[in-house]
């Protein structure tokens, strides 16, 4: 069976080939995500059957069900999907740029900077509303990433220098965070710890609306950069050789990656693992062509966060635990399984 199908059209003159297997897997993942979303909305301290959930979606459910489904659980799930997708795509972009498997939004300091800013906010802000926290975190993340980029700049940014500088600055921000945690009061510290772990607890449509423009805008922007991402994978020299203005593209791609991760961290805190591992999982499922890799990463990232949040709010009742705890708890075993299964590939 041919894995690739070539499609040519006379007018307009287009030619591209389709990887049937990768396309199929993407499609399956998407179906799986939809199923997970519907199931996750139905489950909770009050159980709603799948049929009732769908009825509530189309406006034919009971009033109580509609309230629970549309006003309480749906925004939480939507935010989870967006956060997961943003982090995963952000990680996928960075892994292409840095060509280091450890690359993730944490690498260039976005998460660490956002966390430090948020914890500083918890420590020092006395009479300021908590609603400002996502914004503060976002600004912290953006500033830190900018600092990393500028520090790594020396007539151009080499991926390697960026990674090293990023690790340093992240560690510095991590230290600042611990410092703030030490000088703050205990009850605030535990509050901060919850935020640092990453949670979508208590999200409403307001949060959805805050995050939506960022996610949509920058995911769409990423789609237009797919061919440059593919070129970057080949190394600086080849990318230059086939006509990519690498420093310019690199800045643009880093900016997209930071914006995606920064917004996600701003809304949901430091959810770990997604940005690092979702792209790797996707890579092992659909291969390295970014046209298939990006959607697969996004869907997987979204699915992981939805599942993690589902476990957090159902398994340990009456606790409602942060999703960030479970993203790795579900993702890591699956990743290890994939790693083992594909152990003979290179």
């Amino acid at each position: 069976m041919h894995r690739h199908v070539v499609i040519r059209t006379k007018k307009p003159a287009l030619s591209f080939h389709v990887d049937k297997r990768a396309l199929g897997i993407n499609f399956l993942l998407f179906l799986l995500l939809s199923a997970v979303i519907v199931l996750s909305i139905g489950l909770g301290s009050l159980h709603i059957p799948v049929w009732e959930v769908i009825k509530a979606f189309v406006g034919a459910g009971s009033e109580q069900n509609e309230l629970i489904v549309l006003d309480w659980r749906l925004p939480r799930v939507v935010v989870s999907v967006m956060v997961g997708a943003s982090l995963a795509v952000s990680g996928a972009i960075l892994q292409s740029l840095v060509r280091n498997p450890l690359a993730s939004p944490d690498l260039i300091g976005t998460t660490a900077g956002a966390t430090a800013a948020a914890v500083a906010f918890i420590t020092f802000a006395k009479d300021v509303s908590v609603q400002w926290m996502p914004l503060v975190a976002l600004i912290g993340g953006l500033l830190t990433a900018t600092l990393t980029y500028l520090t790594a700049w020396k007539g151009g940014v080499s991926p390697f220098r960026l990674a090293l500088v990023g690790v340093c600055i992240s560690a510095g921000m991590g230290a600042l965070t611990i410092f703030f945690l030490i000088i703050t009061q205990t009850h605030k510290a535990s509050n901060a710890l919850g935020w640092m772990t990453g949670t979508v607890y208590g999200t409403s449509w307001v949060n959805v609306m805050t995050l939506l423009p960022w996610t949509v805008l920058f995911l769409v922007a990423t789609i237009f950069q797919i061919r440059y991402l593919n070129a970057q994978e080949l190394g600086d020299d080849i990318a230059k050789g086939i006509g990519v203005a690498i420093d310019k593209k690199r800045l643009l791609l880093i900016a997209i990656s930071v914006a995606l991760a920064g917004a996600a961290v701003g809304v949901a805190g430091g959810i770990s693992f997604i940005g690092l591992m979702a792209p790797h999982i996707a890579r092992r499922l659909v291969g390295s062509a970014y046209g298939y890799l990006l959607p697969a990463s996004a869907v997987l990232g979204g699915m992981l966060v939805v599942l993690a949040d589902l476990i957090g709010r159902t398994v340990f009742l009456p606790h409602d635990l942060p999703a960030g705890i479970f993203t790795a708890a579900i993702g890591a075993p699956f990743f290890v399984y994939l790693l083992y299964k594909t152990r003979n590939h290179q």
Partner: protein
Amino acid sequence: MNVILSSRLQKTTVLIAGFVVLAVVMVASILFGINQYSLTTAVEAYTQFSGSEEHLIITTSRMPRTLTAVAVGSSLAVAGVLLQALTRNPLASPSLIGVNAGAAAAIVTTIVVFGSQFPVSQMMWAGFIGAGVTALLVYGLASAGRGGMTPIKLTLSGAAVAAFASSVTSLFMLLQEKTMTEAFYWLVGSVEGRQLDHFFMIIPYLLVGWLGAMLLTGSLNLMVLGDDVATGLGQKIILVKATAILLVVLLAGGSVALAGPIAFVGIIIPHLCRFLVGLDHRWLIPYSIVFGGAFLVCADLLSRLVLMPMRLEVPVGVATAMIGVAFIIPLVRRRAYA
């Protein structure tokens, strides 16, 4: 690559100077802090112990703390060198193979399962075992398959297992708030409050680690050339890799059990030493031992002195990261990376 010290004489001289610096900062670390002592008091604490408060502080607090800092600093630096050679990834550090996360998870699990009835020394064993088991698991996973252990597989399995272990830790900490305060002792790297028996319990393992690393230097030099070249030159690479991992488990596991995860020493010191003496592991390892130890003692001393007016003690892990940033960024910028 530009190396500051090129001749053998220069390298030896600086190494000896490093030992002197280490001795000086160790003495300073014993004498200075919230209470300052004179050198004679410190000597008297050991020659004519009177049981006075000063003597007690010196023998039971300052001395163990200083020794712990030296041992941990050296061990982390050497573990960093070994891992960077093994993975051929300059960003590799002991936390990469999951030792920190594994130790923390083991300790928190022990606290939750058995309550807090165990003394610190027993907890240290839990940490050591957790670190060891995690590292071996990561290594086993990375070695599975046809290509054997490749840097990328090690990196990825390390990140996955570590992420899993730390999610276990967070879960227990958030479910039982009491656990949180106790576990915090290990989650934040610190050399404060360590006792001499703890130090003596772990030091044999660290010594084996340092010695083993010194014996392995020749093989490490070949390892960094790549598996094929090393095999071609007659190295039994599987044996070398397995030994190196075992040494890392001893060094990093022992350090975490003793002081918790102290960030950055395993990255800064190897880079600094490479900058000084180049890529030859026969120099790199001894340099890392000396400067790693000196660095951590300095960092601990600084974290004590700087915030003294506020009567706050900042864990040394915070200070290492702060110093690390200020220090390594110019270094990274100076080197030319393609």
